């Protein structure tokens, strides 16, 4: 069937109908998905080879470029889906599918609700604080995993000032630990910042209060990864044969569960 990345890209095509690889790349980035242009390009090429998208060659800036067109595959994909369900689970499966479709008719989403992560306020610029937010067991868990006392940080910002990846982050490193201090864990786990961290230890080396921020970042990543959730999908990686193993292994250590 389709991989999650392929699905994402096709969903953009479904909305836009006609678009270049660069456009899709920009759209996905804007949605906060960490992806490279190379990957988008490669996936689109593969989809084209499988006949799932149309591709036109257009003259562009003295050379040419590809533009991709949405191909209506509803019929085929749904048939495939039903076929799979039937193959794996038989009549029972098809019946269950019918029940689910009836029940969920009318609801907007069919998503699995996240457990255990306290949800911050629905208005993103407002935090409502209480004992429960501050005396939170998740903060304790983060402190256990990292071995650091988050309240030692007095928000001087030296970590953010020296962080090599800060220019691409959505939240500053010091804001991350600030939000942890205030129990706003969802803001932190939703951020790009913790994944952009390169574990370079510049923050740790310079912190005047001796807070090892690299360990706190790792603890925040582990909150997600230890639930067997991957930040990147190994199967979707485009591996260059010259890539040193240490890069691949360390990347997977940091971004997969």
């Amino acid at each position: 069937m389709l991989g999650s990345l392929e699905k994402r890209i096709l969903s953009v095509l479904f909305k836009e109908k006609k678009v270049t690889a660069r456009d899709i790349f920009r759209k996905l980035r804007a949605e906060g998905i960490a992806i490279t242009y190379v990957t988008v390009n490669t996936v689109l090429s593969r989809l084209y080879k499988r006949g799932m998208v149309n591709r036109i060659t257009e003259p562009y800036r003295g050379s040419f470029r590809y533009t991709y067109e949405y191909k209506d595959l509803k019929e085929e994909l749904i048939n495939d889906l039903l076929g799979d369900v039937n193959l794996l689970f038989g009549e029972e499966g098809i019946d269950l599918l019918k029940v689910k479709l009836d029940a969920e008719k009318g609801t907007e989403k069919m998503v699995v609700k996240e457990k255990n992560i306290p949800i911050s306020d629905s208005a993103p610029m407002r935090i409502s604080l209480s004992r429960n937010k501050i005396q939170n067991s998740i903060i304790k868990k983060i402190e256990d995993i990292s071995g650091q006392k988050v309240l030692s940080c007095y928000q001087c910002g030296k970590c953010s000032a020296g962080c090599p990846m800060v220019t691409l982050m959505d939240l500053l490193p010091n804001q991350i630990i600030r939000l942890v201090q205030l129990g706003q864990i969802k803001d932190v786990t939703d951020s790009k910042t913790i994944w952009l961290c390169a574990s370079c230890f510049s923050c740790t080396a310079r912190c005047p209060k001796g807070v090892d921020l690299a360990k706190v970042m790792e603890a925040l990543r582990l909150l997600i990864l230890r639930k067997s959730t991957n930040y990147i999908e190994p199967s979707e990686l485009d591996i260059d044969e010259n890539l040193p193993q240490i890069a691949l292994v360390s990347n997977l250590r940091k971004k997969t569960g």
Partner: protein
Amino acid sequence: MKRIGVFVCHCGLNISETVDVKKVVDIISKHPNVAYAVDYTYMCSDPGQEMIKSAIKEKKLDGVIVAACSPTLHEITFRNAIATAGLNPYQFENANIREQCSWVHKDKNTATDKAVEIINSMIEKLKLNQSLTAINIPITKKALVIGGGISGMQTALDIANSGYEVLIVEKTSSIGGRMSQLSETFPTLDCASCILTPKTVEVGHHPKIKLLTYSEVEEVEGYLGNFKVKIRKKAPFVDWDKCTGCGLCSEYCPTKVPSEFDRNMGTRKAIYIPFPQAVPKKPVIDSKNCIYFNTGKCRLCEKQCPTGAIDYDQKETFLKENVGVIIVATGFDLLSKENIGEYGYGKYKDVIDGLQFERLLSASGPTAGKIKRPSDGKIPKEVVFVQCVGSRDPEHGMPYCSKICCMYTAKHALLYKHAVHDGQAYVFYIDIRSGGKGYEEFVQRAIEDEKIVYLRGKVSRIFLDSGDDGKLIVWGVDTLAGKKIEISADLVVLAMAAVPNVGVKELAKKLKISTDAHGFITEAHPKLRPVETLTAGIFLTGCAQAPKDIPETVAQASGAAARAITFLSKSELEMDPLISTVDEEICAGCGVCVEVCAYKARELNEIKKIAEVNEALCIGCGACISACPSNASIHKNFTKEQILRMIEEVT
């Protein structure tokens, strides 16, 4: 038969909650030596004291026991009370039934029994107490002030104007201290020299003040009222009696070296007067850099001197002085930028500290008050000020806040803007501490009127850009806007941590006073006794105790002077008589006690061949008592007999 009065205190609920005070009174009043026993809520209060005084008269008591808190709190209060009632103050004992009983036990029965035992043991001691009188010693009516900065000078003036002699010992060749290096002071922007010079001149001319500059304290012996101080007068190689301060010697001297007074921003000669308003205005020769001292040649200063004051063979001298009190006013220095790796380990010429910037601002400084980049002399248009460098940094620097940096940085930024109208100043801060009078308004003025940009965040790195213009790249952050900040700066001024001056730890050892882990001198009590040390007769003031600004320094200086004067104004000092004494019949003159005594209070009398106690020096530590092999060393009112009886009572 002793008639002892026992007063059992409730101490509010502190004692009475755990000890049944009524029962205690009941049992104690049955003791044969107890003529009167009573309980009361607060014995240390006025009514409590009155109760004791009346009881002494009415019940004809010849001994008083107050069963209450620890004697460290109110022993003196009670002794004074019974003295006013006509009873010898040393016929008093304080039974501690709080810290040693009610506060450490929970069970009421055991606590009550223990309280009774404690009081009984004190009765045994009191029965054998002798009536003692305080020892009176004379006081030398002279004060020694170590350090000639603003705090030392203020203290000296207050004491001298009260009619007592003062001796100021200052390490450098002139008084004036850090204030003489400043350009203007916050928040009034008064010219520092203009407000300082009247004081230095007054000190220089005061009939009761003797100035010993270019000198250091070598040794200190003795005690409050009678300190014996040995002072080393370093050799300036110039006869200051002949010298008129004309300055010709410096003009002709061929050697230039970096000037300490200008914090290495400018140069001085090998023979030099540190600054134009120096008091005394006399030069010294820096023998390490002087051509004559290194090679035997030159001697230009000697040739030029119109009064023949140059004396290359001058030696350092020592003099001894007796003083009654000592005030330590040794001031502060700044932590060296060479400690900070991320800002260049001090090797970037255009990264300077606050005092160096003051010298740039100062009209009598190396650039005559023009703000110029040390590297190329150009006027800086982008100046970055970094606060909290080395302060509030338990991991790599000092954990404490240096207190003055927020204010002087605002002052620096403001004065920079006054001098360079089209320049831009940035201040990186974590917090702004502007608590003094007029301080907050001053900082807001700097921000609003001078358009100085305050960025909340620390600076992670400063390094040299690759171009030819020698710009410095500053990487900081503004946590409020949530962005990393990069500035290409012409000049960076670091607010370095304030640390005690060099040599203070050694001086503290000589004075037998304590310092904290950072070298600041420890006060007797941080809240209630901030100008004294735990050593009687030694006071402290100014930044030697902790970083502070000029108004606080001057206030503390006058405070120290007042405390010193309470001793100097007495004709005699009363000392505690609870010290050791020698039983002349038994003493064999073996000398063990002399060796054991840490206070040099024991001496062997050659004629009588026995040991003697110097009552002024003995503090009653008890070392000689246990060391004496023949039991000839006796502690007054703490005899072995008394202690054995107390032990018997409780076991």
